[in-house]
């Protein structure tokens, strides 16, 4: 038997969660240690995955397959594997989980429960990207919902309960339709199977009508997660009300589950439905880009602004997917990673200022650059990365997205470029209002970032620059898979 690397990456956080549950709630040190250790080991193993990953093949790697339910009516395998699309997302998930957990160390209330739910959430997210069996995929998909409900609802902001239940019901409504899609595909396959790789091969036997209906069922589930217009309304609320570290996870990982699903399921399994939907998809992508950016511009709350900028950035992913080219897919996949890193850093930094000032109102600050230079530097760096300044990671992926989409959708791509300008406008406006000008006297004794905050943000800042200068580190991993994916489309 081969070394079960993916299982270990996925279930070490579960072991950590159970360990945390068994510890008494007063022994904070032990809880911190257990949670961090579980998350760190999982991350270390995923670094190993990065180096051991074979970049020359588009096939699934590190495959683990065992029968799980073997009844006549339902045959389910415990079936894990990663390719160039999912492996980077797995690494992103473990990295962002570790960072978010470090950033959570400042949480004072009910820390034990927090760590428990957080680690369960990590299990669910990792499982979604690794599952190659639809049943398993759905199980992991749903596992992410419950911890998120509690994490937002207990440790969130003023409207946390409402945000929590809205998030839960909204995403559940989407995912139950995904379940119907999964079942419909299952019964269409002969012999019936939940094996996602096998289901990718049967689309020749599926009628156009079936593909369109199944496409819509899956799309509904994934679009809510992305979130794609008009299903985005849960996102600003959930992001703003969630505690800092959970906003990071929401933006960095949970949104990626939707884009991942659209690529893995809608595109690979239902090509006729995808082709039919393509003109609508590109329209939605442009709306996400322009409308998301305009909404972000209208915000005075920094966190809300970053939240809306996520809608804008996910729009680039959708646009690139609509381009249906290897370049576009690479762009989308790379944009997912970059958005995770950059927006994760932005949410952390907004959390830093909120912890100190207890306000996120852009207009309430001014001249902070001289007062808190380290914070100002990191914040500006992240903003520049987010708005796509050349030399930073965001530029590469956005450029690839446009490049991939342009041959097929010239006008739409041209309109989308407007989004970059608007993004630049609102980020620069924020930098100006918060960091430049005369110092607002209210903040005369604002302390700069502490060690914990630096430990969580600086690695992300380094990655933003590193991936901007040498994107090959990430793109190499994806390239073969993306070329093979793009080759599926006639």
């Amino acid at each position, binding site marked *: 038997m081969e070394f079960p690397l993916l299982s270990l990456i996925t279930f070490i956080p579960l072991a950590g969660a159970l360990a945390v*549950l068994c510890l008494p*709630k007063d022994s904070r040190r032990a809880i911190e240690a257990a949670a961090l250790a579980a998350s760190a080991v999982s991350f270390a193993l995923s670094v190993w995955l990065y180096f051991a990953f074979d970049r020359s093949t588009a096939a699934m790697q590190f495959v683990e397959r065992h*029968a*799980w*339910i*073997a*009844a*006549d*009516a*339902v045959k389910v395998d415990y079936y894990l594997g990663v390719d160039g699309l999912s492996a980077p997302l797995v690494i992103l998930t473990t990295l962002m989980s570790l960072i978010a957990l470090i950033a959570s160390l400042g949480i004072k209330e*009910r820390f*034990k*429960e927090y760590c428990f739910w957080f680690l369960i959430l990590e299990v669910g997210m990792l499982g979604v990207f690794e599952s190659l069996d639809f*049943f398993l995929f*759905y*199980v992991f998909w*749903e*596992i992410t*919902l*419950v911890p998120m*409900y*509690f994490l937002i*609802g*207990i440790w969130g902001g003023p409207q*946390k*309960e409402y945000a929590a*239940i809205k998030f*839960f*019901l909204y995403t*559940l*409504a989407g995912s*139950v*339709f995904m*379940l*119907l899609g999964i*079942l*419909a595909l*299952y*019964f269409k396959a002969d012999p019936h199977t939940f094996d996602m790789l096998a289901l990718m091969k049967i689309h020749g036997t599926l009628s156009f009508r079936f593909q369109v209906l199944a496409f819509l069922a899956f799309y509904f589930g994934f679009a809510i997660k992305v979130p794609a217009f008009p299903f985005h309304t849960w996102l600003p609320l959930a992001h703003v009300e969630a505690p800092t570290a959970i906003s990071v996870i929401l933006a960095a990982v949970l949104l990626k589950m939707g884009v991942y699903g659209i690529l893995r399921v809608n595109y690979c399994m239902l090509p006729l439905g995808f082709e039919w939907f393509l003109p609508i998809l590109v329209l939605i992508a442009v709306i996400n880009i322009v409308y998301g950016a305009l909404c972000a511009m209208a915000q005075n709350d920094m966190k809300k602004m970053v939240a809306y900028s996520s809608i804008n950035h996910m729009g680039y992913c959708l646009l690139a997917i609509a381009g249906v080219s290897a370049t576009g897919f690479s762009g989308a996949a790379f944009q997912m990673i970059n958005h995770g890193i950059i927006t994760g850093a932005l949410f952390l930094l907004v959390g830093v200022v909120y912890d100190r000032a207890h306000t996120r109102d852009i207009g309430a600050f001014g001249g902070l650059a001289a007062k808190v230079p380290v914070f100002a530097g990191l914040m500006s760096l992240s903003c520049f990365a987010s708005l796509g300044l050349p030399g930073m990671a965001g530029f590469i992926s956005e450029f690839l997205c446009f490049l991939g989409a342009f041959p097929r959708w010239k006008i739409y791509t041209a309109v989308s470029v407007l989004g970059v300008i608007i993004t630049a406008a609102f980020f620069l406006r924020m930098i100006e209002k918060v960091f430049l000008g005369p110092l607002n006297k209210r903040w005369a004794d604002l302390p700069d970032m502490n060690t914990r905050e630096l430990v969580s943000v600086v690695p992300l800042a380094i990655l933003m620059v590193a991936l901007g200068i040498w994107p090959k580190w990430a793109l190499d991993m994806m390239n073969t898979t993306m070329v093979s994916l793009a080759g599926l489309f006639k």
Partner: protein
Amino acid sequence: MLNLALLKSEIVLGALALGLLAADLLLPEGRKRALYGLALLACGISLFLTGSALLPAPGVFGAGVPLPLPTGGGPAAALGAGVGTLWSVDPFSLFLKMVVLGSTVLALLLTMDDSSIPDSEAGSFSCLLLLSAVGMMLLVSATDLLLIFVSLELVSIASFILVGYERRNPKSNEGSLKYFIFGAFSSAVMAYGISLFYGATGATSLVAAKPQGAMALMGLLFILVGFGFKAAIAPMHFWVPDAYEGAPTPVTAYLSVAPKLAAMGALARLLTALVPAGSMDLTLLLSLLCGLTMTWGNLVALFQRNIKRLLAYSSIAQAGYIMMGIVTGDAMGLQGILIYSFVYVAMNIGAFALAVALAADRSDALDPYDLDSFDGLSSRSLPAALAMTLFLLSLAGIPPLAGFIGKFYLIGSAVGTAHYGLAIVAVLNSVVSVYYYMSVCYRMFFTAPRKGARVPRFGAGIYAAAALALAVTLFFGVFPHRLAVWAQFSAKFLP
């Protein structure tokens, strides 16, 4: 062929139930709690007799001995399966008998720690509980309308008394009376239906009947009303909330699972036996009732402030999910009925167990079962709050809990047999149900505890019931294989 020996587990349980009454006379006051132990023992013996017939199912425990599907007497009867004059003991009914016995055990465990039933009445209470279990066990085996009627009456009469057991509680009396009036009415309707059926076909047996024509259809519909009442299918559910709220909570827990599941099982047998033979298509009617049942139960549950009423309405909705398996009627649907029944017992009685434990601390309150008993439970006892959360999530059908597996089978069979409308109604209902199940979680985790609220204490019985239920809910959610194989083996009728 009489084959009375097939019913050995029912006969033993019935005899032991009556024996409990005798033991009640002999035991001195103050030692009567021992009767609960005896009742548990009786269930255990019956469970063993039932289980020994089913457990050698292939693949369930290790390799196992492949059980030849018995078709009558002979060596097969030695295994405990076969056909009698009015009954048929087949894997399907054996499975449901075990579910009924399992829920009886859990209900007895809850009763041991519930203050609403004084210890002095332990004997008569357990006797009634066991007798109603006997009725359900006969019901799921019955292949003749006469036996169906008699066993339904046995269940009903015992349940009427059980609901009214708190003599000094006006709500209990009200619930019992409503239950009785509705019950008597539906029995009469059912008896009329049986007589029409007899008139049309000349027999009461389900086995060889070929119901045709308007009279047989009328008869069948009236019989359906009787079952609908027992299984609380909308619009025949009106007695449920009051009876459930008024009854002693262990009885509520019991009534919300066992009779429903037994009636569903018998209904499945009835319809599989009669409908194909009679060239009548009841699918549309049944799927309408099914959709109505889940939707109505869920929508009304949204507005409840009392945990017993909330679980009562949710159990109406749950019956609707189970009914999907009857509507589709394919192998996956029948297996879904069995799997869901099994896990439903655990998750629903588990939720009731925690409600009982919390209410025990609130003798001062006007309504000890108000939802505010759950306020801040996570800070008082995190394990209890997590256990309740798991039961509720399982009821809502969130993986990886056992409730999801059952729901998956049922919705899967609806999709597989092209009942897409029903499948959509079912998944939307799951979303709605999350709202009210989560409202309990909201109280447990998001709300501060009431003043003076203590750490809940768990008596040994409640603790055992909750732990057992939790183990089933978690284990079969994560490792559903054995349950699936077991259900696959069991979803077989004998004529």
